[in-house]
């Protein structure tokens, strides 16, 4: 399972500049500091966007929009929460907008039909080595499709909470803080999400 994002991020920050100093430098207009700050968090932001949206193009857009918002509004960051929480508020808001728009438009499934057969648009991503066993492969493909269906059945908010907890390894308390809600509400979202998925996946488990 994913490691705790905040912990992993902390390890990537240069020991020369702690995060608060880095943020203050960005607030003074230091673009090198901004770049350093971005690099401390950008992998986890991109991973969240890619896994949540299952589209490289959308993930790129979210990445850029999120960090540009950070750049433009860093002056308003007052250290009353962690930078990680502040950044993820921005990222999750943008991602939720994307998910909500998709719910309305019902667009861009990861697997699309082409004249040459079904094409998984996520094939560009790094993947585990394929199993040699064809039967196992088929089972994996079917399971993958079932999982996508199960995730599509979640509300954007349930999907977000699940993604942050399962893949990003964040605590429910932090997730609640990022999403502007309570730990209890985040907990309810996670419960509903897991229940829905267990129902949909059923015999595949």
């Amino acid at each position: 399972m994913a490691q705790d994002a905040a912990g992993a991020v902390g390890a990537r920050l240069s020991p020369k500049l702690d995060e608060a100093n880095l943020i203050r430098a960005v607030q003074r207009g230091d673009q090198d500091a901004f770049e350093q700050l971005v690099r401390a968090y950008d992998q986890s932001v991109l991973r969240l966007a890619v896994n949540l949206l299952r589209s490289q193009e959308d993930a790129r857009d979210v990445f850029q929009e999120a960090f540009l918002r950070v750049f433009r509004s860093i002056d308003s960051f007052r250290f009353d929460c962690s930078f990680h929480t502040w950044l993820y508020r921005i990222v999750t808001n943008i991602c939720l907008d994307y998910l909500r728009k998709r719910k309305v438009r019902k667009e861009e499934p990861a697997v699309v039909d082409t004249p040459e057969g079904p094409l998984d648009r996520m094939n560009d991503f790094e993947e585990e080595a394929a199993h040699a066993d064809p039967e196992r492969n088929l089972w994996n493909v079917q399971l993958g499709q079932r999982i996508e269906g199960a995730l599509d059945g979640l509300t954007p908010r349930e999907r977000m909470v699940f993604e942050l907890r399962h893949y990003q390894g964040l605590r429910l308390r932090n997730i609640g803080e990022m999403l502007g809600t309570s730990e209890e509400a985040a907990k309810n979202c996670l419960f509903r999400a897991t229940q829905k998925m267990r129902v949909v996946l059923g015999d595949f488990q």
Partner: protein
Amino acid sequence: MNCESVTKLIPFYFYGELPPEEEDGLEQHLDACAACARQAESQRALSAALDRREIQPSAALLAECRHDLMRAVYRHEAPALRPAQPAAHWGRLGAWLPSLGAWRMPLGASALLALGFVTARLTAPGAAGPLNLATITPDVISSVRSVQPAHDGSQPGEVQIVLDETRRRVVSGQLNDSNIQRLMLAAAHDENNPGVRWQSVDLLKSHSDSSPVRELLLNRIAEDPNPGVRLKALDGLKTFTGDPEVRKVLAQVLVHDDNAGVRIAAVDALTAHADDDMVGFLQGVVQKEDNTYVRRRCVKALQDMNASVGTF
């Protein structure tokens, strides 16, 4: 703890979100209840299946995202220089472009003053061609040169104030009007006011097919002390990146400009055209350049040309 409450707690147990005492109670129940143990196993299987679905974004995608972001930061933040933008922008740009500090607030007035000064020079006897000037308001801008007691013989307590007065005029016309263009070209060189230079370059760059404008843009790229102006001039030449003279200036900028944003814009413009003659130059940039994005761009250009990245 009964089966109903355990069912609700299993997901949180799995994610380590239960307090220790609740966790202990749940584990005891699972040891004793086969039905709940199956549910816990189902949760574990679900999690394992979901783990297999996780995508790790490729290093190439991350690099592209970083590159696009920093380009956007360096290049697209420059329009915030416009004086019409809200005051909040000035703080950031003042820091980014340190030389702009002195002209933050009186920008509008000083821009007009500069234009007035240029107008006076261009309409002086001997200047080429009369300008069709639309003088709307003969505003007089005054500044106090000196204050002193009045001369002998004046009333007690009388003072003498010496004012310098400048007449403000508004000139309007089409950008393709040669007289207007001359004014703009002069304003783009106003060394006291980067705001006026930036605005002039921004307006003139849409006429970069005109030779004097192109020369101005090349001059500003190479000479302007303000990176915002240099970026704007560079932007105006993006359709001429195949021109040898333009490429020569861009290459100089790529090597000598101290602003990474300008170097990024220069390398993007240079590498927009495959040019085998650049191989040695780009290899040299890769060796010496500090900025990751510029280096990466050069490396990609070299790879696209099937050239080696390093020198041997």
